[in-house]
């Protein structure tokens, strides 16, 4: 998706059809609907969709990815500005609406920088070339005698300079350069890339003026809340809204039908239920509580997550389906082993609980839809609205607000579909707000998992065989019912591609049905694989009587590069480098107090390499996380402080999973309600976090937002084992009385 179509301006309309496959370099900021006019605009220079330069020098750069705390608005804009040689003080950032013309906008998978950096740099570089040409023409010199620097083009012969703003008219008249003529800067010439630029939105964040979805206000808008069936996919048999309608502020109560996407379609639809429409949020919430609904609980009504855990635990003790990529013969390895170790690990269902609950403001009128919402994937939201409401795509506008956290929850546009459904029904703009209880009880959950591991150790302490059986409900089940086994892409997240050199390796996939909507949460299946792999390696290291860091190094094996299907081969040396670095910054071998323990974990995810060491202290049987040391190799760094911020955040997120995260279900209904029973890390639990980024500026950029998460739970459990000799194989630790 990183291809850029270079076009001359007159070819713009002809080529516009290609926009859906990438980013058009040579189009103006006009929409596809408007006829492109070759007329030169004298007021601004907009050589492509992402850059808008005014005569006063102000530059507006377009952010095509959703901002949910990862600093993407700042970092992608800085890549454009760097190549453009813009002075950062003139730069403002504007959020793109959901539209294929901006290229893929799906903000997940830790891939915004990986996939967008080069196109954004090219946007900036192309604009710079045009500004230089405009100046060279004025001076009647060669372009090679000019350079751009800090918002000026400089004549290197005469040392004259022209302000970018003064070149607007002339540059606008020039053709857009061909993509192959664009030269990108060298690493040593970067001005912003690899450095720290603070968030462009800081002042809004510290003054309460950033507009999140929930802050959108449209004249005459209504507020709505929906009561949904406690059991997934249950339906409304009948309801009595008499009491709800008596609540002051409540204006209307309507039934919402479930919207079900076609099988295999990657849409989310909506659950259906009863919607209360009011003139303020609180009245809608109150009205909802006063509804009397008779539910048909449907097929999932007997689901019990504790029973399910037992079922999966039994299933993984027996053979599952052999997964391609298995190699050697583990049975022989186990027979000849010096020691054989077995262990079963469990991770519960988890929910994202972003601080801003799911919400959307929608206005359906005159065969048009406009939405304002905190969405990670505005194009999918747009596409599913087009399908469900039978409205042409071009009549649907998705305005992307700030996201008060996403973590994968806001990739799913069910709450947008709900809001539009209500707006259509009541013929007015409406803001739908989920309560926190709705968020905890009706999410797309991170799957629960059970894994069985068996390992053999030979007389030298090497791992001679590794058997892993994995059971977790698949994400695919949300799009294709009866998908009862993990899919290939899920197993590819740390299971088929674990970071170790194993001669005898057998992976088996075990059946696990879905009874809740399954989605993805920050680092996805890596949460399972990271926990299972690293916990088990720690158990093997103990059995082999070898230091865990050394044991990991041995197991990663000699330096080699393993090519996969992607353009990002797995390089064992880079993994060893992050591990050695973490061991060094954590002072791994240092003598610590008697009640302290150290744990280590490594993980390769989203093409980045991470090693994390955790120090815990134990007091009266309770654990405190004292220190976290994390090293990442994520290739080229775009914004240094963003990377540090993301890894600090990932450590806290991973800590929440280890200590508190658990969604359970009884009689089909999720048992947790709010932050008092779905707890998360608070200030008093927060450790000191030390982040180190390896300098790999000549490598391709890889993921940052998620790779810091999967290492946390295993590193903590390994540290507790180191301190106490007790092994915890089931999360969360609060259930073990450790908090």
């Amino acid at each position: 998706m990183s291809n850029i179509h270079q076009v001359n301006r007159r070819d713009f309309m002809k080529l516009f059809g290609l926009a859906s496959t990438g980013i058009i370099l040579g189009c103006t900021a006009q929409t596809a609907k408007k006829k492109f006019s070759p007329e030169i605009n004298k007021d601004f220079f907009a050589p492509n969709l992402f850059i808008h330069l005014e005569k006063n020098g102000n530059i507006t750069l377009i952010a095509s990815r959703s901002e949910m705390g990862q600093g993407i608005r700042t970092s992608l804009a800085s890549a454009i500005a760097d190549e453009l040689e813009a002075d950062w003080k003139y730069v403002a950032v504007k959020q793109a609406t959901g539209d294929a013309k901006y290229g893929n906008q799906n903000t997940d998978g830790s891939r915004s920088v990986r996939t967008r950096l080069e196109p954004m740099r090219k946007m900036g570089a192309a604009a710079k070339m045009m500004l230089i040409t405009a100046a060279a023409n004025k001076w009647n010199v060669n372009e090679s005698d000019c350079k751009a620097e800090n918002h000026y083009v400089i004549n290197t012969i005469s040392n004259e300079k022209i302000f970018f703003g003064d070149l607007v008219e002339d540059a606008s008249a020039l053709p857009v350069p061909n993509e192959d003529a664009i030269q990108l800067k060298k690493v040593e010439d970067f001005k912003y890339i690899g450095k720290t630029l603070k968030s462009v939105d800081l002042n809004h964040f510290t003054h309460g003026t950033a507009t999140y979805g929930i802050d959108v206000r449209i004249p005459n808008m209504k507020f709505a809340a929906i009561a949904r069936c406690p059991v997934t996919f249950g339906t409304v048999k009948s309801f009595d809204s008499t009491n709800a309608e008596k609540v002051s502020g409540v204006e209307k109560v309507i039934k919402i039908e479930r919207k079900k996407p076609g099988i295999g379609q990657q849409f989310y639809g909506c659950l259906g239920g009863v919607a209360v429409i009011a003139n303020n949020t609180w009245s809608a919430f109150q009205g909802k509580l006063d509804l009397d609904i008779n539910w048909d609980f449907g097929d999932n009504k007997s689901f019990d997550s504790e029973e399910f855990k037992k079922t999966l635990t039994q299933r993984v003790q027996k053979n599952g389906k052999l997964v391609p990529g298995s190699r050697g013969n583990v049975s022989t390895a186990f027979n000849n082993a010096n020691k054989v170790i077995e262990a079963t690990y469990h991770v519960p269902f988890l929910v994202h609980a972003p601080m801003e609950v799911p919400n959307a403001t929608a206005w359906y009128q005159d065969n048009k839809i406009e939405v304002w919402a905190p969405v990670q994937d505005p194009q999918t939201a747009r596409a599913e609205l087009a399908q469900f409401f039978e409205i042409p795509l071009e009549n649907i506008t998705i305005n992307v607000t700030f996201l008060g956290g996403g973590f994968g929850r806001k990739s799913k546009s069910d709450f947008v579909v709900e809001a539009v459904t209500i707006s259509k029904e009541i013929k007015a703009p409406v803001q739908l707000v989920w309560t926190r209880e709705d968020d905890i009880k009706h999410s797309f959950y991170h799957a629960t998992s059970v894994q069985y591991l068996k390992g053999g150790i030979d007389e030298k302490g090497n791992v001679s065989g590794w058997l892993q059986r994995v059971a977790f409900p698949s994400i695919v089940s949300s799009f294709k019912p009866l998908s009862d086994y993990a899919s290939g892409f899920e197993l590819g997240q740390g299971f088929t591609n674990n970071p170790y050199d194993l001669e005898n390796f057998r992976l088996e996939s075990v059946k696990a049905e879905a009874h809740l909507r399954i989605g993805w949460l920050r680092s996805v299946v890596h949460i399972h694989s990271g926990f299972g792999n690293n916990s088990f390696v720690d158990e093997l290291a103990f059995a082999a009587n070898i230091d865990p860091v050394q044991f990991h190094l041995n197991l990663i094996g000699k330096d080699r590069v393993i090519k996969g299907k992607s353009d990002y081969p797995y390089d064992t040396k880079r993994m060893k480098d992050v591990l050695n670095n973490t061991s060094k910054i954590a002072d791994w071998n240092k003598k610590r107090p008697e009640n302290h323990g150290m744990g280590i974990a490594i993980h390769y995810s989203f093409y980045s390499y991470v090693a994390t060491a955790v120090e815990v202290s134990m007091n009266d049987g309770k654990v405190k996380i004292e220190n976290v040391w994390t090293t990442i190799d994520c290739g080229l760094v775009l914004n240094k402080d963003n990377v540090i911020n993301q890894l600090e955040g990932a450590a806290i997120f991973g800590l929440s999973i280890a200590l508190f995260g658990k969604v359970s279900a009884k009689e089909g209904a999720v048992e947790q309600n709010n932050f008092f029973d779905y707890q998360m890390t608070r200030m008093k639990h927060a450790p000191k976090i030390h982040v180190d980024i390896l300098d790999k500026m000549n490598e391709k950029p890889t993921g940052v937002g998620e790779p810091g998460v999967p290492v946390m739970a295993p590193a903590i459990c390994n540290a507790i084992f180191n301190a106490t000799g007790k092994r915890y194989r089931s999360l969360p630790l609060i259930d073990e009385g450790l908090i």
Partner: protein
Amino acid sequence: MSTILSINGKSYTVEVQENMPLLWAIRDIVGLTGTKFGCGVAQCGACSILIDGQLTKSCSMPVSYGIGKEIFTIEGSSENLEVLREAWNDGNVPQCGYCQSGQLIAATALLDKIESPTDKDIDDAMSSNICRCGTYSRIRKAIHKAVELKNQKA
């Protein structure tokens, strides 16, 4: 019914039920959206405001409680809030930013009470505010930094 609320030194006459939580009156009726909804049950601190200087979870206090009192929100300004803002910006604290209104108000209440808080004071004062992005270590540093900035200015 018609009620007068005094917010950040300004008077607002609003038509509102007195049992409506202050959070929703401030957001939906008065129209100041900097104060955030997080949980509705005083568990996360996103809705933190000051009422007559006291740190309050506005999602769980009715409008009637605020009548005749001085309400202070993130849209307001005070010496401690300004210095905290400066420290927040200096440390590039926010990630998604959603909880930071509440964090800043809670930190303002802390500095209003304790001139130079210790780490333990910060743990005690700030543990009722959740940040799902996990900016805790930066918040801690920024509170210390704010004290430093204030001392420099004094």
